[in-house]
């Protein structure tokens, strides 16, 4: 299972990549593998300020539905248009490339200290092993 070293993780299987005062959030390789084929991603929180652990969106796989949670507090700045039903509509990008083209939202970081509470790649790798 792919767990890139440069990312931080949550116990709920989201990853976060910090880029200055913003960050990119997605779901992990392990999560996409457990969910199976993803058929739809719904994010209706763009523009909203959400707390850490609040639901920012929902993933529909053929077999199951799963909410996605904010790894840290922040404003949801953007949703990956590639996954959007009005766009190219390719939610399978999450299955194919969960850390790349399958990213889900961009957020503005409210409190950088919260990043310290997240799991390192090693810790997350241990959690899913």
């Amino acid at each position, binding site marked *: 299972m792919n767990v890139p070293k440069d990312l931080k993780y949550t116990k709920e299987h989201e990853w976060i990549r910090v880029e200055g005062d913003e960050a990119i959030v997605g779901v992990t390789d392990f999560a996409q593998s457990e969910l*199976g*084929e993803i058929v*739809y991603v719904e994010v209706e929180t763009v523009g909203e300020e959400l707390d850490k652990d609040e639901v920012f969106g*929902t993933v*529909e796989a*053929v077999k199951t539905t799963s909410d996605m949670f904010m790894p840290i507090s922040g404003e949801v700045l953007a949703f990956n248009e590639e996954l959007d039903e009005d766009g190219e509509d390719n939610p399978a990008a999450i299955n194919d490339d969960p850390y790349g083209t399958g990213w889900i939202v961009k957020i503005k970081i409210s409190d950088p200290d919260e990043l310290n509470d997240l799991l390192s790649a090693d810790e997350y790798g241990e959690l899913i092993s």
Partner: protein
Amino acid sequence: MKKTPLYEKHLALGAKMTPFAGFEMPVVYTGITEEHLAVRNQAGMFDVSHMGEFLVKGKESLELVQHLTSNDAAKLFPGRIQYSCFPNERGGIIDDLLVYRLADEDGSPAFMLVVNGANIEKDWAWVNANNKFDAELTNVSDQTALIALQGPKAGDILSSITPLEVAEMPYYHFKKGEVAGLSNILVSTTGYTGSGGFEIYAANDQIGPIWDALMEAGEKHGLKPTGLGSRDTLRLEMGFCLFGNDITDETSPIEAGLGWITKLKKGDFIGSDKIKELKEKGIKRKLTAFTISDRRVPRHGYPIYNESEEKIGEVTSGTQSPSLGHPIGLGYIDIDYAIEGNPVFVGAGRKMLKAQICKLPFYKNA
């Protein structure tokens, strides 16, 4: 956790395994959608060895089967199968099953009852507790393996490894004979997909060679190994009930739309008085099919509301339909609202999904 005789083959094929009915079962090999469409368009092969098989024989075998099951087993003849259920004393459903009428033994009818894997222990206790007849029951589940070969190419594939004439066999019939060079194999025109095909019952040590022969014969027909994931999406597109979701100890066969397997005229059977009473009084809720125009998928347990946001039911099964490309579901809905075309709403967390009640099956074979 138990393993079926095909366990190693599933691992070699890269299956993702999951615990189901006490067995490690293959849920998916390459992808649910791909496997689903293989069954609809070519052929797929499922290991369903977790299913349970009970044999019934003896002077009063028919009387026992008639007492336990809702359908009329007196209508069966050797080689004929019927879908049925075990009602409980309250008129709910202990399990749904297939009743196979085997050849006579010692001058009396013999039967094979095929039950859900997850219910083997419960059913075995139930049939024995209610055996007040001169009938002998044998549980052969642990010695019996089962493959479901399903799809429009299933007849071509199976025909190439058996001298049995299987291609023209009508639905819900069976034959015994040689398959892949092995004798006494039971082949039935049954399945749980709506795409036609066969179920093949064999002893544990026979099933591996049959699986291999079918895989080889099926290669040029596009046969794929298919897992429990696509088995569920295939059955749901047809509106076939799943025990534990759509039918339970608390649901009546009448509410579930299974009146056609409930033959009250055949005489008394377990639960028949309660079923008759409900039929006369009229049901208050009904297992109902619906589609969702939203992209969100209904799931087991989601509440169903009317336009005034009053709860009128609950989802029992839901999925994204691989054939249709949109979400579908089944649920028990208050009879006053269970009208085709009626708009209802499914609660998915904070969200209300707009649904339309529709007819079954969701998927119609071309």
